[in-house]
């Protein structure tokens, strides 16, 4: 008997090339929009349409950023910011994940905490900074705690969402295949919830950086955010814009890397409409 094959066509080389061209076209358009905006700002500043002292041309910002990077003047501050944010991310991801699993396992606790979790981001965590200094001392830990507090709930909620969305049929399949609890979690539950967990990690990184740099800007005596604020207060606009440019490039690159990793993760899972 001949086997019967009913399928969407597997991507051919031609359809793959078409898809690649569409992707490149989007990237090209995006780059063009950014380039045009920068060009407009450059022109506006150089032609005097906007105050060129308050807003230096983007080309000067880039040069200033390059000088800062080469001189290494702020490497201690950059290190302080990165270490505080990195630590906050690690803590938020680990504890957020465990908290999410706990909420999933204890529905009663979840029911109690649900309204608090929903309104969590309405609380401006920066107001807790004095309290954190009292609790943790006048050092970098209050900033780490700020980053952690800002990120941990996003991680927990996304973990919870991921675990809740693991299709029951996959867990029944695990039982059919005589899988133990540990293997079920490792081989089915985690991979099935991974897109949500990854979104949680992505948000944790973003939120931690926002909180740490924001905290430094307003409340700290060292770090990237503090140096931007310091340059701003001393009317040192080239330094301020240079630091801002460095920060934008760093955060932009990080976000791009995370986005690429996320896309790769989803690529295999989402049903693609193939012409």
């Amino acid at each position, binding site marked *: *008997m001949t086997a019967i094959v009913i399928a969407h066509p597997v991507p051919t080389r031609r359809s793959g090339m078409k898809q690649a061209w569409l992707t490149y076209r989007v990237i090209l358009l995006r780059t063009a929009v950014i380039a045009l905006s920068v060009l407009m700002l450059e022109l506006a500043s150089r032609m005097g349409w906007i105050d060129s002292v308050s807003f230096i041309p983007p080309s000067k910002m880039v040069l200033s950023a390059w000088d800062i990077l080469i001189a290494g003047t702020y490497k201690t501050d950059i290190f302080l910011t990165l270490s505080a944010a990195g630590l906050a991310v690690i803590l938020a991801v680990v504890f957020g994940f465990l908290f999410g699993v706990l909420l999933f396992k204890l529905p009663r606790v979840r029911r109690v905490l649900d309204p608090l979790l929903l309104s969590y981001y309405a609380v401006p965590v920066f107001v807790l900074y004095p309290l954190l200094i009292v609790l943790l001392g006048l050092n970098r830990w209050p900033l780490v705690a700020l980053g952690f507090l800002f990120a941990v709930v996003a991680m927990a909620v996304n973990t919870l969402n991921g675990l809740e969305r693991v299709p029951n049929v*996959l867990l029944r399949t695990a039982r059919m295949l005589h899988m133990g609890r540990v293997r079920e979690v490792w081989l089915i539950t985690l991979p099935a919830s991974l897109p949500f967990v990854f979104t949680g990690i992505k948000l944790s990184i973003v939120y931690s950086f926002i909180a740490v740099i924001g905290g430094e800007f307003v409340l700290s005596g060292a770090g990237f955010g503090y140096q931007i604020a310091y340059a701003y207060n001393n009317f040192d606009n080239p330094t301020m814009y240079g630091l801002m440019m460095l920060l934008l490039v760093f955060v932009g690159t990080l976000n791009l890397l995370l986005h690429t990793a996320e896309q790769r993760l989803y690529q295999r899972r989402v049903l693609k409409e193939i012409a």
Partner: protein
Amino acid sequence: MTTARMVPFPRRPTAVSAPIASDAKIHVAIKEATRIFTARDTGRPFHALGPVTFELREGEFFSVVGPSGCGKSTLLDLVAGLCPPSSGTIHFEGNPVIGEVPDGVAVVFQEDACFPWLNVFDNAAFGVRRSGLPENEIKERVDHALHFMGLASFAGVYPSQLSGGMRQRVCIARAMVLRPRLMLLDEPFGALDQQTRLLMGEETLKLWRDTGSTIMLITHSIDEAVLLSDRIGVMSSCPGTFIDIVETGWSHERDSQTAMDPRYGALQAKIWGMLREESIKALRVKS
């Protein structure tokens, strides 16, 4: 932790063309089995199934039809060991089934159970990889199953690139690779269009003939049950019990052309005659 025990197919002699004999060896015995749930919202007990008493003969194709919500899938869960009976007993190959899927039993569910992060080959190999078999034997089994299910050229493709019917065939291939002696199919073609269902039915018959497994199919479709089965269990509305078990008398080499047989229509009418009142009852309960 246990792993699936691999036992070769009990091959059926190729010349067999007669229906499964009524004195064939009993493969599964269900005696007075019931299932009573506690309703989550009210906390009251809900009698979902039974008491049900029947036997599956070794190597037969048995289908269960019944109105919506009569407990067909619950019955399959009990036989599979996915949930324990509230009362009564279930035996597979003489051993009691108590809340755990016995070795030699595979289940194909109605929902898409493909792992989206694995390609077709790895999906099919997923169960057997945990058995400790050498990789070359796993590859041999999986290649055979994929070839059998018409998926050989899709081994490296991800489930998201396949149609619903193909994804369901990946799940059947995964079950087939385990070489089960009892295959439980819970409306595996429920979400497919009529043409694909017919083709999948033929594939299932081919699988049944080739492997010699006992198959229990849960289905909404009277046509499908009549076409594929040696015997059909007709269930009442909830709590489901068997009103009758109908022998089709088809030869072993049946296929979709069996629908041309005059007995086909008679069997359909007979089963619908039994189900009609029950379906009306089920609708009244729902509304």
